[in-house]
């Protein structure tokens, strides 16, 4: 079986690195081919990397509260770039101030994300979701 390829990174002007680092390492240990873009990654770079590596999923992080601004229109750009089929995940603190995880989930699903993860996400479970979603798409 070919290793599935995934892109990780912190989107926009966000500099919080720890979450995406831990996630990247966990993904690698779980058998993924991980392209780790790190912090301060413009949405275009995610798309570029996904095209170049023929990625199966993009796993974005954002903690600084301005994610919505950063990713509005991202799904559309992905479609334009022919990445319709790439899974989009996002996780972190997805707005300014105390959050309601349910609201965040709805909001970012509307913006085109397949799954939305709150802080303190158990990464094992998230990676389990990823396997399941890839399987459902017949990618693994």
């Amino acid at each position, binding site marked *: 079986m070919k290793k599935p390829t995934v892109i990780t990174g912190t989107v926009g002007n966000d500099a919080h690195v720890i979450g995406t680092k831990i996630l990247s390492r966990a993904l690698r240990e779980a058998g993924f081919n991980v392209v780790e873009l790190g912090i301060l990654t413009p949405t275009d770079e995610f798309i570029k990397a996904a095209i170049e590596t023929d990625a199966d999923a993009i796993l974005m992080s954002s903690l600084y509260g301005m994610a919505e601004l950063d990713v509005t229109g991202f799904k559309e750009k992905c479609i334009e770039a022919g990445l319709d089929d790439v899974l989009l995940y996002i996780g972190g603190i997805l707005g*300014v101030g105390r959050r309601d995880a349910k609201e965040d989930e709805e909001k970012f699903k509307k913006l085109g994300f397949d799954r939305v993860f709150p802080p303190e996400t158990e990464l094992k479970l998230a990676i389990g979701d990823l396997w399941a979603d890839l399987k459902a798409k017949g990618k693994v």
Partner: protein
Amino acid sequence: MAPNVKNQKIDEGEFLRMREKVLAQWPTGKEVDLDEAIEYQKKLPDSKNYLKIMQKLHEEGRTVAYPRAGTATIEDSISLYRKLEESQVPFLLVTTDSYTRQLEFKKVEAAIEETKKTGKKILNGFPLINHGVKGMRQIVESVNTGAFNPRISLKAYPLGSEIAFASGMTGVSAGPFISWGAYEKNSDIAEAIGAYQYMHRLIGYYADRGVKITCDNHGWILTGVQPMTVNLATTIAEAMMEAEQGVKSVVSCIHLMGNLAQDLAWIRVAPRLMREYLDRYGYADVIIAGTLAQHTPLFPMPQGMGGAFAYTDYSALVGALGKVEACSIRSIDEALGIPTEESHQLTYESVNWFFNVIRGQKIDLEMKEIAIEERIAELEIRAILDKLLEIGDGDIVVGCIKGVHLGIIDSSFSPNKQVKDKVIGVKDCRGAIRYAEFGNLPLPEEVKEFHREKVAERERADGTKADYEMTIRDFWAFNKGQLIGKPVRA
């Protein structure tokens, strides 16, 4: 801002030429008139002067909270800082938003408009440069007591600090390491130091005219669980860089990791060595305004309110036992998002209780562990600083630049690609932080042996290796209400 940057005072003419470019970055730059700004600063009361406030706290034997605050609009800011004033918080942080930090002033404008229209909060901080001197002075003038102090970014500090000081801010987070090492991915250490020299030189310009603006030196904020050795060494290096540009007042910032003895040792050792190195390198006239302690925000706070209060009260406790003047406090909303005014208020109510009750008792802690940690920390910090000065041929700037390239100073988990990332830290059995991997840190063999013993003890206790897994476990420990990350047994 050349890569061949050195620890050498920028010539005044050169500086004034640089200024023109800086001020042209955004229209509000034109609001800055240095002569007028100096007069404005001179008229500020002592109660708004960072240095004076620190000195008074020291005399009175008090500790106060140092907040993390910043909100997008002038009205909200005035309301927020007045609340902080009511909560007896005399250091008024102005955290700027992330667009400002990237010089994206047009986006800021759009966001401000959107917020005005819809009431929705978008910016995660105060857009200092867009609001300009006029806007910021409104805020400075809205309180009676409190020294304002901006948090900006590598890119935006030059123009940001021009506006900040002209607006009457009297302190600033001034070290280059924090931006370069914790907020940036691609920036170069030499460029970063060069960029900060501009701000230091600006403060020197004020100082030459009798206005003392104080530099907080945070050093290289080390991400994740690792000893604060490199952090403390770089705070001292930063003070030396600032001093060379004419800065006359600096603060010793100590980042804490949660073991009382180790934290107190760091609090004792850091300002002492800062004084020594400043004196030895010809900066005896630089005042160390005070000490600022904080549980380094590089691991997550508990999300539950009970745990959040405990953690923040613990910070207050350690600060008070350490007799620092100010203690940087994370609000009880830290893990949840930008705190509300109410969260700020409740947080300070709580930590003020601890500050008052502990400082009032005039407790002098004596524990043999403090003495041991102090000795180890001193050996470590000296070894690093002396090595940096050696490879820099006595020039601390050159030393730091080379030091980064060689991993003489290093950190795990840094977002910056330039960082070696060869060190790993874990907690020992009492929650003190030790190196499991030393990378290229030039630590004395005796010190390394000490770390190895403590790490071996932990490995025996846990029955696991001291590796990446362990550091991650330890990283989450406080968040889960534990001192040390316990291994998960299958």
